[in-house]
């Protein structure tokens, strides 16, 4: 599904990704871990096409296409979804309108008919159960005045509605208490499927107790320093990132 080769990227003149390789197949969940500043969020935003994140080398192939050649909206319509670490508040635009516009843009791209208001609301009702999101939140302006947990639920709710092929979750666990984490992770697990790939970016192993990954990668200084199965996350949890930093430095 996704093949990243030698990816290099700069943000504001600083090189953050320095030759990153990663292959993710359909049906797999990959965790990308790493200390602050290692490039985890940069990777997430580069894949979603955030302006100002300048790719200086390497390639990203998504379902056989050059992902980097697509605009952010084209990537979304092709099935790429980024759950933001800090979801943006948009006063004046209702969540439900925003989602309907987004979904219909995606459906139009797929050659599917646009959903009318009735069908859309039925879909909202169904998907709201995934993350147990209050329907009143759906009618409010996008993320405005939402608590941290509500914002994260809203991201996963949007993911459920848009039904992406590749979901990138950027620090979805940050700022969540344990109950909210359980709900959000439960929603993500419901959305796991053999057709969908997920990249779960996280600083802490905690989230991976709930979303058990197929592969774990540790990102250090803009490169994958170590890959393994879910036990690598546990090892990191007990030994800390310094353990790997020492190994990387010694290489």
């Amino acid at each position, binding site marked *: 599904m996704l093949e990243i080769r030698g990816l290099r990227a700069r943000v504001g003149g600083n090189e953050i990704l320095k030759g990153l390789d990663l292959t993710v197949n359909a049906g797999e969940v990959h965790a990308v871990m790493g200390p602050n500043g290692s490039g985890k969020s940069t990777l997430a935003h580069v894949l*979603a*096409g*955030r*302006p*100002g994140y300048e790719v200086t080398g390497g390639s990203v192939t998504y379902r056989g296409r050059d992902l980097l050649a697509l*605009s*952010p*909206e084209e*990537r*979304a*319509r092709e099935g790429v*979804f*980024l759950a*933001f670490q800090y*979801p*943006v508040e*948009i*006063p*004046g*635009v*209702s*969540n439900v*309108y*925003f*989602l309907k*516009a*987004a*979904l219909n*843009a*995606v459906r139009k*791209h797929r050659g599917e008919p646009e959903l009318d208001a009735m069908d859309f609301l039925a879909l909202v009702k169904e998907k709201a159960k995934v993350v147990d999101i209050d329907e009143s939140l759906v*009618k*409010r*302006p*996008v993320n*405005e005045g939402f608590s941290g947990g509500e914002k994260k639920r809203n991201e996963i709710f*949007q993911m459920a509605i*848009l039904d992406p092929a590749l979901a990138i979750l950027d620090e979805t666990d940050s700022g969540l208490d344990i109950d909210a984490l359980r709900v959000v992770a439960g929603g993500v697990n419901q959305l796991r499927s053999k057709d969908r790939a997920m990249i779960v970016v996280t600083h802490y192993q905690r989230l991976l107790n709930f979303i058990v990954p197929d592969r774990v990668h540790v990102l250090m200084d803009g490169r994958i320093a170590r890959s393994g199965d879910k036990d690598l996350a546990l090892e990191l949890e007990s030994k800390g990132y310094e353990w790997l930093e020492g190994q990387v430095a010694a290489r």
Partner: protein
Amino acid sequence: MTAAESGVFRAQYEALTQDGTGPGWLGALRRDGFAHFASRGFPGPREEAWRHTNVAPIARATFALPEPGRTVPAERLSRLDFGGAFTGWEIVFVDGHFSRELSSPSGAEGVRIGSLADALRDEPERLRPHLARLAPPDDTDPFRGLNAALLEDGGFIELAPGVAPTAPVHLIFFSTGDAGRPTVTHPRTLVVAGGGSHATVVETYAGAEGGAYLTNAVTEIVVEAGARVDHYKLQRESEGAFHVSTLAVELGRDATFSDHNVCVGGALVRQHVEARFAGQGGDCALFGLFVGDGAQHHDTRTLVDHAVPHCTSRELYKGILGGRSRGVFHGKVLVRQDAQKTNAYQANQNLLLSKEALVNSTPALEIHADDVKCKHGSTTGQLDPLALFYLRSRGIGEDAARSLLTYAFASDLVSRITVQPVRVALEAFLHHRLPAAPQEAVA
């Protein structure tokens, strides 16, 4: 003296003062108005109050009086009266004169709605206590003097104490203007809301597409004790038009006033909005939205005069500026020495959609009392790039995302409009101006 002052304005002034009709006090008002105008002429860019708005195009133009007997095409009128969705009294003025044919029969028990010209002819004593009391000729704004000198017609609305008609009043001022022969009108409107009454008044200013003309309007609104007036002004003049106006309001004890100023038309626009508290417990809310594109110039100047204690004022003006357009906001809240326990809030927020667009924002507080709560602020910025990316990352195209965010910027002002056809008309305008904007996005 310039050509304009000695030309059409003087000729019209002489015609109006020499025909011998009308009450003596009106003649005195005209003389006073013309003296103020003639002694100083049009303001120049060196005057502080006109620093950002150059009225040279008005001073240079040679205006003519509109040809009598013109009318508004029915199709055009139906767009101005909200396609028939408006259920209220409608008073239409064509080139400054009341049109009986186009207006709906109006008035009800305790509600007088009609033309100022009729009232000047039939019952001038009803006008005398208030006409030009709140917006007298003065030295800062010669347009006001010119209006006093040359006023002929406009709306006259009077509510008896305690009446609260549910229907709003809509005054439509339409200029037929020729492109090659600029015309001028001086609409004058007076609203007197008796104690405890409640009125909703909508003013629309518009003109024939491509028309060149000057609208020099003055509206005075007296809100007596315990009364409430909700006022809307929709400035939808033609793209070649000049529009200069004053709205002057007086709030009596425990009176409530709200203004919703929608400024989207015209080439060169200058508006004065002035509210003065004359009794304690008053509540005044001024809202405004100016939307400029191309080379449009929109200047709004507000003054809220807290002359007495225990009054509340709120002001929120928003500007959306594209193309090479320019917006000017100058707001002043004056809290006089006796006006303790004043609560005043003033904000101006602007959104620049292009590199060439420009806004000058000067919110100002002048406080002479010590026990008051006053706040003001001004922000000018562009669309939030992160919000734009967020929308795009969900599949919404860039143009649609820009329109959506621009629309959202104005949405709190739009949603405050409670006269539904007015709100619908504004939404329709914004959709038209922002082509990819949503039909149902307002949250």
